[in-house]
């Protein structure tokens, strides 16, 4: 059950916003194992699976379009009050950021044991 993220299911508006050709993105799919590695770095500040709340905000369970636009803004725009996320987001392709957004959106904040049960 390889969970993939076909680009066709992404909101068209986000594709228009980032202005990349559809064909270039259409091949960008990531296995669960790959996403676990890609998302690994997020946990260092946002907690395992992005669940932690504190001075650094929780990212688990937030709507995918919110996370996507936030991440793409960090990468491409000047976001006020940003300290570190601009420097991190620039290390990922737009397709990777979109996949990460969907990954964290898909985590059930209410159920902390979903991976084991």
């Amino acid at each position: 059950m390889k969970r993939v993220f076909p680009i066709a299911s992404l909101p068209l508006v986000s594709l228009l916003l980032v202005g990349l050709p559809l064909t270039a993105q259409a091949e960008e799919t990531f296995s669960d194992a790959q996403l676990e590695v890609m998302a690994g770095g997020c946990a260092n500040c946002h907690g395992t699976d992005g669940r932690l709340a504190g001075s650094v905000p929780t990212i688990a369970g937030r709507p995918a379009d919110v996370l996507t636009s936030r991440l793409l803004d960090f990468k491409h725009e000047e976001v006020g009050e940003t300290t570190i996320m601009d420097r991190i987001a620039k290390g990922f392709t737009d397709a990777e950021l979109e996949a990460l957004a969907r990954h964290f959106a898909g985590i059930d904040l209410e159920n902390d044991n979903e991976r084991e049960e």
Partner: protein
Amino acid sequence: MNHRHNRNGLTRRQLIKGLGAASLLPLVGSAPFAIGGQHAGRVIVVGGGFGGATAAKYLKRANPAIDVILVEPNETFYTCPFSNLHLGGLREMDAIAHGYDELEERYGVRVIHAMAEDVDAEAHKVTLSTGRELDYDRLVLSPGVDMRWNALEGYDEEAAEKAPHAWKAGAQTELLRSQLEAMDDGGTFVMVAPDNPFRCPPGPYERASLVANYLAQHKPKSKVLILDAKDNFSKQGLFTAGWERLYGDRIEWVGLSNDGRVTRVDADRLEVETEFGTVHRADVLNVIPPQKAGWIAERAGVTDDSGWVPVKPETFESRQVDDIYVVGDATVAAPMPKSGFCANAQAKVVAAAIAASLESRPAPEAYWTNTCYSLVGPEYGISVAGVYRVQDGVIAEVEGAGGLSPADAPDATRALEAEYAVGWYNAICQDTWGTPLGGRVT
């Protein structure tokens, strides 16, 4: 050690959890998933710091049917990150202490509190200080660093009891703190900083900052003198600007070109001598000596002439010995620094690579990030970040990403970064050991 035997083999709860999770994992044909208590391979992890504890946890997350054994001598682990806050009187030791309950109880990692004394790579065996021998399919070493005793003339283990390094957190941290507290007003805190590579490149300069912060409040006539074996250091511009701003001329830094390199230590007299014969007398002497990979790495045959461990960048498997993976400060992973963040990031790549290799799948592509926060003062934080990928067979920083906090940032940004530094510490400790917010529950 009854608790260990109780976990020898999967309990009913773990078995149920394991089977449940297996059904959520990618289909892998005939891969050996746990059925009736059999495991999908055994991985021994040596070292329970940022690298080892993370590797153990993420191996179980990748596949709960892998039998994961963590070998770590101490029941309580004190982190080097934030140990400078203890030195500066800003944090209790308990608030940098972490344990292994979550790994055992939630993830089903078997934790053995012993030293790993030998590795037989050929036979795939680890010998423990208890005499016990353990077989492995894959071995993860996260041995941290050892001091190179006598690399600085006069600085050995005994000298470290008088002139602490405090570069492994715990008793050394407390010793240096007590010396600092006992120092008379007007005294000089002398720090000897090593040449690259060493654990936590910005660490000495954060330490100087937080010691100066303490002195400013409690011993205002005292100074900090850093004698450095190099001419440049991590976040140098940000540190020196912050020092000037917060501490005036309380911190003096002497680099290599100005005869900053110490070549001899006299711990009894609290004196150090530099390359060109200048003798500096300290009231408290903190010697951070040259370092190398933790001893078990050498024993396992994974270190090279440099004393550090070369690894295959895609997986962090040893370049020299098959089926041994190494993470953290012990590795040669430049441009990634020797930081707890990197050890945690590398461990996740290793866990994914091992889980894949036990199922004969290719390893996922490696991604690493690093963010190192340093506190110049309690409300003055600075950072350096990096994002890394394998490019042309070597670890490379992704161009255009990462970098330093801006040099011209307003105070509000420094305050925010100080807050995020605490947020980072809480998060990485939760991610590594499961420590709840606000420190260990004791």
